[in-house]
């Protein structure tokens, strides 16, 4: 059995931009997104022997990217919770990269609203509405049924709609 190694550059050319956007919509910091994307492709480099077809790679890269993004968000949340108890934490929290501000206030508000969504709803929304994945593909990546993926997106859209209405009401 001959196992041909997949060229990581080919994978990067095919998935790099998609993975970048998937991570960015979770983390919302270009600096941290770059770090995570590097980790994702480095993990792929170390797992080269495991996979043969490029189709398998797609799902693998998406899963690694989602897991790493969620891990990063959880550790940031934990760190911020701890920092609340430290009186001199202002200087420390300034050193931690926060979500970046964009020039467009509506986009900024939308990104903030996406950040507030529950983890699974956010992932399903980004996969289906930004990466344009089908229900089946989204379900496969997230390890859930296509129907469950669709219902997550519906709930996420409802929450965002309420948020946008509130935002427009404030303007």
């Amino acid at each position: 059995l001959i196992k041909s190694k997949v060229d990581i550059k080919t994978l990067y050319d095919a998935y790099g931009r998609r993975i970048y956007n998937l991570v960015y919509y979770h983390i919302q910091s270009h600096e941290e997104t770059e770090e995570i994307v590097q980790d994702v492709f480095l993990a792929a480099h170390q797992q080269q022997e495991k996979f043969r077809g490029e189709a398998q790679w797609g799902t693998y890269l998406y899963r690694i990217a989602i897991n790493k993004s969620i891990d990063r968000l959880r550790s940031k949340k934990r760190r911020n919770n701890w920092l609340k108890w430290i009186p001199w934490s202002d200087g420390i929290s300034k050193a931690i990269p926060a979500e970046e501000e964009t020039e467009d206030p509506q986009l900024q508000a939308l990104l903030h609203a996406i950040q507030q969504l529950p983890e699974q709803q956010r992932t399903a929304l980004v996969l289906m509405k930004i990466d344009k994945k089908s229900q089946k593909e989204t379900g496969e990546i997230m390890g859930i049924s296509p129907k469950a993926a669709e219902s997550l997106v519906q709930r996420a859209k409802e929450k965002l709609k309420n948020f946008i209405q509130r935002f427009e009401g404030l303007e």
Partner: protein
Amino acid sequence: MDDMKRKLPQFEPNPHLWTRIEGRMLRLASDTMHPILGWSLTAVVAGMLLLSISRPAINQDQDVNPYPSHKILYYE
């Protein structure tokens, strides 16, 4: 909601991102190569030491001429 779709842009990664990934892959390869080379070298040196200890330089059980004929030097 349609407005929202229009508002969600696709971001372009930094053009140098691939170079950074490549650099980290190379560093990883060299980090894993060094221990392998180090251990191989240690194994070779240890093997040579063991061989030199287990094999005496002169077999003392046999009556061996310490000055083989072809090595005898004649002086006038």
